[in-house]
């Protein structure tokens, strides 16, 4: 067995998996607060990466500042998403909210196409352009940063949910949002925070992804769907599950690219999604939430 190839496959899987993990975390946060699947999640990644790239390339903003501004902008977009979904007070069921998120995703993508003039934008790696050599394999330094970001984001969110008043409130909303309302916390407040957090984490994924490839208005949709598959794989709504699911999916795709029929690599995510839903819908690390009728 070629160890170089093996290590390369694992590194590649972790590199892409870190991004999937961040996307998956976002799906979980919104799902916990609203019970809906937020299809805008992939677009948050696109907006985060694209706006950081535009700021850096077109306006010569320093990289770090560009990333921070992009995260702020995307977080605002998350808040706007909540307003667009729940601001009219007409959507009540998770299913109708889910459908409406698709509409918002289309709007965001359409607007991004016009604003970016269909151009692609890139960011330099924060750790410099060099690559890391590991046992005969090689990866961008940014990969290391992305893994670190994913782990830190999951750790920070776990702490946030366990230790802070707001985090506890969001967990309470996930547990029983109706009862939470009888204690004076409105559904929309928790939903808005959830969308803001999901958008911020999505933007972080975008800023981490941009140095590995380039971003265009079209970069988010498929990434979002794969991130959802990762979320299901790890157990929807559980940040640590999201991390595990993201990395597993990344590695599974890389194995297909490195050893299997490479052209079918992107089918893997959807086969995994189908398989996990039919075999173990609570996910590998999922809670005992009822998913069957």
């Amino acid at each position, binding site marked *: 067995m070629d160890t170089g190839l093996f290590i390369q496959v694992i590194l590649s899987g972790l590199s892409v998996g870190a991004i999937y993990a961040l996307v998956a975390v976002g799906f979980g946060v919104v799902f916990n607060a609203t019970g809906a699947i937020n299809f805008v999640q992939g677009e948050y990644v696109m907006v985060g990466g694209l706006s950081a790239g535009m700021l850096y390339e077109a306006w010569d903003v320093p990289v770090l500042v560009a990333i921070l501004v992009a995260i702020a902008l995307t977080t605002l977009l998350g808040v706007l998403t909540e307003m667009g979904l729940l601001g009219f007070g007409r959507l009540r069921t998770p299913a109708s909210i889910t459908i409406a998120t698709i509409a918002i995703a289309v709007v965001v993508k359409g607007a991004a196409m016009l604003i970016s003039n269909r151009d692609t934008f890139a960011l330099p790696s924060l750790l410099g352009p060099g690559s890391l050599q590991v046992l005969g394999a090689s990866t961008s330094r940014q990969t290391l940063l992305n893994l670190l970001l994913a782990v830190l984001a999951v750790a920070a969110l776990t702490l946030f949910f366990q230790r802070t008043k707001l985090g506890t409130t969001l967990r309470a909303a996930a547990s029983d949002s109706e009862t939470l309302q009888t204690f004076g916390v409105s559904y929309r407040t928790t939903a808005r925070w959830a969308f803001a957090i999901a958008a911020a984490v999505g933007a972080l994924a975008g800023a981490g992804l941009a140095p590995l*490839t380039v971003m265009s208005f079209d970069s988010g949709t498929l990434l979002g769907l794969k991130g959802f598959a990762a979320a299901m794989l790890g157990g929807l709504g559980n940040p640590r599950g999201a991390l595990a699911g993201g990395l597993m999916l990344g590695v599974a795709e890389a194995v297909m690219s490195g050893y299997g029929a490479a052209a079918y690599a992107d089918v893997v995510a959807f086969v995994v999604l189908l398989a996990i839903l039919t075999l173990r819908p609570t996910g590998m690390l999922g809670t005992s939430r009822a998913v069957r009728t």
Partner: protein
Amino acid sequence: MRKKIPTLLTCSALLALSACGLGSSGSDGGSDDTITIGTLFSVSGSGANLGDKMRKGAALAVKQVNADGGIDGRTIDWVFYDPAGDTSTAVQQTNRMLDSDGVELVVGGGGSSGIALAMDPITSSRGVAFIATEGARQIVEPAEDHPLTFKTTFNDTVMVEKLIEFWQANDITRVAFMPDTSSFGQSAQEELERLAPEAGIEVSTAAFDPAANDLTPQVKRLAGNDPQAYLAWTITPAGVTFLKNVRSVLGDDVMVMHGFGFVDERYMTQAGAASKGTLLVSPKLPVWDEIDKSDEQQPVMEDFAAAYADEYDGEQPNVYAGQAYDAMMVAVEALRATGGDPDGEKVADAIEALGTHVGVTGAFKFTADDHSGLSVDDVAVIRWDGSRFMPAK
């Protein structure tokens, strides 16, 4: 009965909307002072970027022709639709152009080979000439089955021949090939796997999804066959990832190549240091200012580049803009030859009789058997030197 009235009202409102939509677009083209040319390019959806460049190229051609007094005094009435990458939408829009908008000649096949292939039977059955701007050779081959259809792009066959010629000249016998899974990549894969073995070149292939974010597993896997050159075939940003990944895994010494779909300064710049030294098979347009002044194409490219930059705020044209510009100009030349008669067969005969049309993309020599008109002579191997494209040695 009374209860149904709101429903019926909604129904009839929708109905009225649909019917008036169908009616209002029924302008009849072909009046004496205009010629109606219809175009589809996907300026939204994936591939929107190149669709937009094609639209800019075609629009420039229409503007120039109309400013110069049109075709024998008749101006071009340009009808444009965006199928957004979807063939069934493109089929509807083609029907609309021909049946409802009075389009007499079709230029541009939606920006993807699949769409052009879907449009061809419709235009042919209406006896309308169709000049495509998409890659797949099946759009025009065999020519006897596509008597009214032409295209102003390179057949993948020509590109692959040029590649083989280049590899043979450089003693390269083992090549790693990475096409994307789009129609662009698939067409090239078919050609390369057909032609390379005959030339004694061993090709190992690993495809990738256009939306992929890391290609190192494929690169590393192909490296196991010890290839002398790595060639990617894509039009998407994943090509940037390819450049970065090859350099990261294999270092700076290995030969890295891209197909003509990736000839774009922006992509090269965005790949940073990883793009330096990349070789590309391409039309000569990107290096128009570096080639010999005696080349008959040189002034055409120079004029085009200047006019394009003038029209679009200093933007440099890319090969897609050039293809679309050429397609429109070939149509115009043919219409001038027929005296403005847009009849499909007459236009087709005129195109085949043009002799040599020196365009931006190359010197087209359409014949009854060759409806794509470009040859290996029109292809250049160019090199990105870190800041600009240069002819490769």
